[in-house]
């Protein structure tokens, strides 16, 4: 009888290119020097916790946090993001377009991969085509879905062509002003020729062009990154290297941090939410992230359809005291939601008409529920199920929310666990979830459209609740074609107004990046993607 509790679970990044203060689209950004914050170059090896990568460390395969941290440090793309989330050219000389649909990209001369071969336009073209080609089975294939020629049903080449050694062109399916913002995401990194010679060969030390190279990878133990002597770009390491130490339990990593065995922890364990800011003082990090948590309300459940369904959605939303849950359950490491996007997104506002439905009001909630009951009775025995995968720590907040729902609405409310993530996915896909279910969204790039279209657009990939409202789809379309960003923002707000009416998902809270570091290191900053900016960290030996 020896199974016991186990907490570690792979976390996926759905996210990608991120930047807050985006460079204006169209012309190239200037080749800014990185903001030279405090800290001269040091030689200490910085240790940071991580999880064992679940895929080969290649741009086309790595789609989860474990591998992501390594990949973004061993590969360099066209642009990179600084700690403010602003994008700067890394390998790109220029990224230009007349119409925001046909792009011409010029890369800098003189870059090499760690095996000495040059990085050329062809390195990008081949890598992108390889990842986007369906039969190559790449996890990141989806990220090329806005490229002309992309298909997820048959093999077809995307419209990326090399013009000369340093220039290549891209054609998108539709104009996209923020194209260059995507390009810092790992799916858009180049790959060396040696990879294409035999892509299936698994390598512990992939050849890259980033600020670091993999020195050694002891599986399930540590990935050692050392500065790449041939690195030409602006992300010059200020330390002697990075050790990504693999943990399966964040509590353990945290205890190692407290005893100076670990320099940086990227995720504070939930058991330390209440104490970590006292434990670490100004070495604690608790800053907003571009992640919004919602409960999806499935269209396939009869009780949530029609007029009564609408009332029930509102009743559930108003029965939840978000303030109390974020403060008590999450110790202030979440921020109550006021919209469907995130406060770190340009155009965010907390006073969209209809957002009152996110305010806790037990009496109003009960009144709405009773009104729905009068129209279409479910009976007093009704139990609201809140489903989630159980292999990650979701039960605590679901329990808290359920207690609030029970107290306010006088109905049953239970956590409905799926033992594994894939079972949860399955149940969502075949519409067999017996109630509302957890949904979280992390943006691919920093625009409101990315929070709305993929989740609530008719037939969209992550529209797990199967919501469909032509008026909402129309608003999104209008916003995509808007002439100015302000106009677009206004239209996205109108689109959200529709969502507040229909509540296809009930926004709960925004995640914060909760992290910390030991006294052994300096100049630690966390990026928009909640990952530490490792090359800037200083540590003396």
């Amino acid at each position, binding site marked *: 009888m020896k199974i016991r509790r186990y907490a570690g679970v792979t976390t996926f990044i759905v996210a990608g290119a991120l930047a807050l203060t985006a460079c204006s689209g169209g012309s190239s950004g200037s080749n800014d020097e990185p903001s030279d914050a405090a800290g001269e170059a040091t030689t200490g090896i910085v240790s940071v916790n991580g999880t064992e990568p679940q895929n080969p460390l290649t741009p086309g395969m790595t789609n989860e946090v474990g591998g992501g941290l390594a990949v973004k440090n061993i590969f360099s793309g066209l642009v990179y993001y600084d700690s403010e989330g602003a994008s700067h050219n890394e390998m790109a000389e220029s990224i230009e377009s007349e119409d925001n649909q046909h792009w011409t990209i010029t890369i800098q001369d003189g870059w090499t991969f760690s095996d000495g071969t040059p990085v050329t336009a062809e390195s990008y073209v081949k890598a992108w085509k390889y990842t986007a080609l369906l039969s190559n089975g790449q*996890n990141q294939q989806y990220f090329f879905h806005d490229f002309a020629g992309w298909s997820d049903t048959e093999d077809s080449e995307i419209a990326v062509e090399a013009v000369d050694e340093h220039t290549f062109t891209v054609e998108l399916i539709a104009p996209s002003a923020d194209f260059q913002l995507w390009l810092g995401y790992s799916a858009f990194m180049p790959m060396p020729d040696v990879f294409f010679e035999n892509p299936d060969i*698994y390598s512990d030390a992939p050849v890259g062009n980033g600020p670091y190279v993999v020195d050694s990878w002891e599986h399930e133990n540590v990935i050692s990154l050392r500065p790449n002597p041939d690195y030409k770009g602006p992300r010059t390491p200020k330390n002697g290297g990075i050790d990504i130490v693999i943990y399966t339990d964040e509590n353990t990593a945290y205890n190692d941090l407290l*005893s100076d065995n670990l320099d940086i922890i990227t995720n504070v364990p939930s058991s330390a939410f209440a104490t970590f800011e006292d434990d670490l003082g100004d070495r604690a990090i608790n800053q907003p992230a571009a992640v919004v948590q919602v409960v999806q309300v499935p269209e396939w459940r009869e009780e949530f359809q029609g007029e009564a369904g609408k009332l029930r959605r509102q009743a559930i939303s108003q029965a939840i005291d978000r303030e109390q849950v974020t403060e008590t359950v999450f110790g202030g490491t979440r921020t109550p939601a006021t919209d469907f996007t995130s406060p770190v997104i340009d155009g965010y506002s907390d006073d969209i008409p209809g957002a009152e439905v996110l305010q806790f009001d037990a009496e109003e909630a009960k009144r709405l529920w009773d009104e729905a009951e009068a129209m279409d009775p479910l009976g007093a025995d009704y139990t609201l199920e809140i489903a989630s995968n159980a292999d990650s720590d979701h039960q605590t907040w679901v329990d808290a929310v359920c207690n609030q729902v029970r107290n306010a609405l006088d109905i049953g409310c239970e956590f409905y666990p799926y033992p594994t993530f*894939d079972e949860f996915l399955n149940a969502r896909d075949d519409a067999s979830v017996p109630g509302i279910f957890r949904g979280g969204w992390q943006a691919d790039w920093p625009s409101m459209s990315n929070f709305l279209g993929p989740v609530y657009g008719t037939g969209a990939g992550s529209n797990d609740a199967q919501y469909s409202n032509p008026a909402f789809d129309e608003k999104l379309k209008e916003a995509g074609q808007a002439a100015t960003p302000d106009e677009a923002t206004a239209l996205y707000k109108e689109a959200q107004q529709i969502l507040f009416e229909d509540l296809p998902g009930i926004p709960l809270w925004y995640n914060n990046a909760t992290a910390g570091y030991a006294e052994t290191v300096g100049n630690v900053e966390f990026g928009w993607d909640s990952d530490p900016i490792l090359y800037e960290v200083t540590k003396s030996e």
Partner: protein
Amino acid sequence: MRWYIGRRLLQVIPVFLGATLLLYALVFLRPGDPVAALGGERGLPEAVQEQIRERYNLDKPFLVQYLLFLKGVFTLDFGVDFRGREIVDVIAGAFPVTIQLAVMALIIEAVFGIGLGLVAGLRKGGIFDGSVLVISLLVIAVPTFVIGFVLQFLLGVKAGLFPVTVGRDPNFESLLLPAIVLAAASFAYVLRLTRTSVAENLSADYVRTARARGLTRSRVTGRHVLRNSLIPVVTFLGGDLGGLMAGAIVTEGIFNINGVGGTLYQAITRGENVTVVSLTTVLVIVYILANLLVDLLYAALDPRIRYA
């Protein structure tokens, strides 16, 4: 005796086939679709999923998958896991530290369990017996997670007496605390089994006879009582070795040990059938050998037990 051992070793084959078939059936019946989960919340296009299923033979019928696995075993080519890593490497990476940890835990639970159990059994009903009962209640009722966390925090982080985690440097010193934590739960079994058997055997005829013959108390205890009391204890320890190796999930997590328990657990939740069955195959062999050793020990402990 030699014939008996030979026959037992031959029996490894049917057990191996039975266990792997049962395991394969279980992983096959496991609900959910591991390939779909590879894409995270975003999911993967259906065509990509088919690709992956084909690559890992997941599209084949059950028996074909099982036979392909057997072929892999006999050619010592287990294939690769979803990460593209050779499963042989995964096994080679996880087992050494796990064996070290499990053996240390086994020794700890055997030494302390038998030692304390013996004294408690000899003085049944006394204060010592009572205190030992309280200790065993404690390790039964307080889960490993808590024992591990508390010991790590107090002895490791606060007092600095032990390394906080094992990580990439598994040695005797760093594995000592994890081994103690791992041994805690089984310790209660060893202790109670020893104590009761000792107490029971104390009243056996041969003990009275031996005492009557004028043998010293310690000699009676050592040569007769303890030896005769050890049969259930040794049985438990033999069966527990495999359990300590496969079930150290929590302990491995707390002390950041890259071992079999955690690897197995993750492979189960990810639905990596071949990894699960391959790792367990090694465990099956450990179980069989440990149980064989126990059976041989019976004959040494109790001369009346003979194997033809």
